[in-house]
């Protein structure tokens, strides 16, 4: 019993390490095609439009409600110790350093990451990847690299939009609804937020974009070529990305403290 359990755990760990190694090699070999000819510039832009613009609405809604909740919750906590003047920096720091990149990335995984995995999985099932190969078009560069780069470039922009919307929504709730002094709110925010906070958020968004791009394309490419296989790969990609976002968030945060 114990022997078989140990064996199962051992095999699972080995399989996990093999998969991480395979995904890393896949990511590196795909990214190495960035400067390869023919350059995929036009297709990067097309994918950025499909992935980035398609995620805009969900990012704006999430950003707005995150800012509003933070202001509402923060105000009722800070007023107990008479420090409601710090509402602005509290909302801004939470959004810029943590919630902006993490929530935007999680929303991005659900909206764009899942569709990338499903699309690539279906392209495999229906032999579209082989068809590109037979038409002398490298599917790794055309389909996979363009989506990874689009994720890396789109997510920081979406995080910036999330931050701006969240801060504005927090301001509206704090100042217009709860009556915090507008000058104090803005002054304290500008005073307490430094470049390091912006860098922290920006760095996270780039790493998250790369992570989402590589994991989602990898899972789509390695999906079992059946309907069930593609569905399973999509679910696994979203789960894996979500967990990895939280782990990497912790690691990057610890570097920027």
């Amino acid at each position: 019993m114990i022997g078989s359990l140990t064996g199962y755990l051992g095999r699972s760990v080995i399989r996990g390490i093999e998969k991480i190694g395979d995904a890393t090699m896949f990511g590196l070999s795909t990214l190495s095609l960035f400067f390869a000819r023919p350059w995929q510039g036009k297709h990067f832009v097309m994918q950025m439009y499909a992935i980035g613009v398609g995620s805009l609405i969900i990012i704006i809604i999430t950003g707005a409600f995150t800012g509003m909740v933070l202001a509402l919750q923060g105000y009722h906590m800070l007023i107990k110790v008479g420090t409601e003047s710090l509402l602005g920096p509290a909302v801004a720091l939470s959004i810029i350093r943590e919630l902006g990149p993490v929530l935007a990335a999680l929303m991005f995984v659900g909206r764009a990451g899942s569709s990338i995995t499903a699309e690539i999985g279906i392209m495999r099932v229906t032999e579209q990847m082989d068809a590109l190969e037979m038409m002398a078009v490298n599917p790794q560069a055309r389909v996979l690299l363009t989506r990874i780069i689009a994720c890396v470039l789109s997510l920081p922009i979406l995080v910036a939009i999330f931050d701006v919307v969240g801060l504005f929504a927090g301001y509206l709730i704090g100042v217009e609804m709860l009556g915090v002094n507008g000058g104090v709110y803005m002054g304290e925010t500008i005073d307490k937020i430094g470049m390091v906070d912006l860098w922290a958020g920006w760095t996270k968004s780039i790493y998250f974009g790369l992570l989402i791009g590589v994991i989602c394309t990898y899972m789509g490419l390695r999906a079992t070529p059946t309907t069930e296989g593609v569905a399973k790969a999509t679910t696994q990609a979203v789960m894996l990305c979500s967990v990895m976002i939280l782990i990497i968030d912790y690691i990057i945060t610890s570097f920027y403290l």
Partner: protein
Amino acid sequence: MIKTIGLNQHFGSVKAVDNVDLHIKKGDVTVIMGGSGSGKTTLLRLIAGLTVPTSGSILFAGEDLAKVGRKRLYELRLQVGMVFQYSALLNSLDVYENVSFPLHEHTDLDESVIRTMVTMKLEQVGLRGFENMMPSQLSGGMAKRVAFARALAMDPQVVFFDEPTSGLDPISAGVVSSLIHDTTAKTRMTSVVVTHDVQAGLDIADHVILLWQGQIIAEGKPASIRQSEDPRVQQFIQGRPNGPIPFSRSDTAYIDDLMHKPGYVRMEQ
């Protein structure tokens, strides 16, 4: 045109292609036939350069596809077209964009020239006027014909067909078969067709290769295949359920499974 020498493709202990030597002549329609799982699609993928063989050589115009680099492979692929079993049209593009795709990718032709060429290819497959339809709006036969037009877009020397008539009604299958035959005759291209449709295969072939368990068991002109005395060939072309090619693929005896394997209801002998 295409030659394989000692070609092998193994998946673990399964020999999907087992020591195959074949020669596909320029301008011929070569039909590779065999039952399900006989290795014909694997063989087609090997000679199309989509799969790297376990061992052996695939010579395309004198160059070994297993040894050339990706850049050279892509140069050689400009001389090749392929029609996949499920058409493999790019489903985010309409018919015009699918057929013009290779021309946009590999030529600097003016859009008006490309439009003219696409119209000619679509006319050739009887689908002129369907340029704006999406792949999801096409029937199986129409999708195959669009895939055929796309494969012809670059005026290739060789076109590979993977099960071109499978899943089609008899009329659509007949249309696709005659398109393959007529286009090969008119353009002097080389066609390699993988199919288990015996009648269609024998009708359009100049040369037939019959596979079983990854090996060539017969080859020659359709007439010689029809007259072959090999019982495996006769069983296949006549579609007989009983013969040397077994229906069951199990390695173990049925009675052993029922009597001795754990997890079964124990039966008294």
